[in-house]
């Protein structure tokens, strides 16, 4: 399925959150060692992947506390499932499947509770963190533009149905292949393509003022 690269060089298997030095042992080796009872191996897996797990959870549920709980619960489940994990999928795919399912469950539980708007879900530190996020070059205009772009992304993500949001994040942020996304979400390849197309179109519409076309 993965046979050609884009002419614009965009077909990059980006993995901005979960990369690790090439000399470090691979996930499969760490899983084997953790399954044999080596605590340091399980700890290394957690340290390596926890940021990506948290980012994925947070971008789906949009609450830091919930995302932290989901991250912890995901690794607890990973630990419990180590014995039965036969390496049929990549460790990262397995972990993401757990995180996405937990996040979607959390959203379902939240939807059954009295309605809380997305703005309600924002936490006290959120605005402060956004203020801190100045542009690296120190240009106030560009810093403002970056904040506005992040706000547009926030709105775009909020407008997306949760499964589309998850597909978009798994592809654009985690760099999973369509096949891996289908395994994580539990849907057909065609569904991945259509959800991704819709999500990207919505994101592009929201970000149009910030795109250099």
């Amino acid at each position, binding site marked *: 399925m993965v*046979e050609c690269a884009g002419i614009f060089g965009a077909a990059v298997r980006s993995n901005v959150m979960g990369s690790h030095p090439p000399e470090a042992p691979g996930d499969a080796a760490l899983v084997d060692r953790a399954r044999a009872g*080596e605590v340091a191996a399980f700890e290394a897996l957690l*340290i390596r992947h926890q940021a990506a797990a948290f980012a994925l959870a947070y971008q789906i549920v949009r609450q830091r506390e919930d995302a932290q709980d989901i991250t912890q619960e995901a690794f*607890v489940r990973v630990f419990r499932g180590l014995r039965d994990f036969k390496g049929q999928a990549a460790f990262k795919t397995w972990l993401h499947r757990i995180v996405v399912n937990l996040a979607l469950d959390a959203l379902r539980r939240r939807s059954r509770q009295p309605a809380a708007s997305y703005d309600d879900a924002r936490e006290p530190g959120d605005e402060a963190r956004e203020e801190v996020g100045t542009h690296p070059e120190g240009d106030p205009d560009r810093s403002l533009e970056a904040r506005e772009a992040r706000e547009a992304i926030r709105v775009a993500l909020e407008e997306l149905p949760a499964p589309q949001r998850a597909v978009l994040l798994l592809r654009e942020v985690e760099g999973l292949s369509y096949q891996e996304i289908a395994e994580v979400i539990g849907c057909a390849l065609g569904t991945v*393509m259509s959800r991704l197309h819709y999500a990207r179109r919505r994101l592009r519409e929201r970000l149009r003022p910030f795109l250099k076309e």
Partner: protein
Amino acid sequence: MVAELREREPHVLGERLGAFLDGELPLAEAEAVRAHLAACPACRTDAVALGQAGALLREAVAAEPAPDPEAVWRAVRARLQAETPVGAPDRRRRTLPAWLAWPRGIVWTAAALVLIAGLTLLQTREWVTPAPGPPALPSPSLAAGPPALVETLEGGSGATVMLYAPPESPVPVIWVFEGEPMEMPDAPPPPDAGTT
């Protein structure tokens, strides 16, 4: 802006453009998309916009501070240990590796050491040497001196026989030591002490 997009729709390759950029199209289909892009400036613009939007999304996600990995590890480890019941017939408990069960190992090791130390003490004569009197004793007759040493007898064969009657138990304990008679502390017994 949206109207402009819709106007372009006939040129837009739909799902196939994103799949092409992701490298997810079969070769023949990818070649067709490539040919269309070479001839269609509008679709090339869309492709660039898709790439930029994705980059902005990644920047926004990366800007979000992640929790401290060590804190996550401590929390997960604590949860795993807390979920390990002691003495319960739990499947999870049986499957936990040894490194998570170290607190139980320490307890059993400590218990074994205490037992060995106690047995070693029982082998020594100092065991019956009176310690400073406990704050409260149940029997007034044992309130001073060697509290539980009731009798020391010298046998005719050079052995020392000691009779020990612990106040909390009706069963006396008898030691027989071979050799010289045992030296007892010099402290005189109280007038009504139980040593006879």
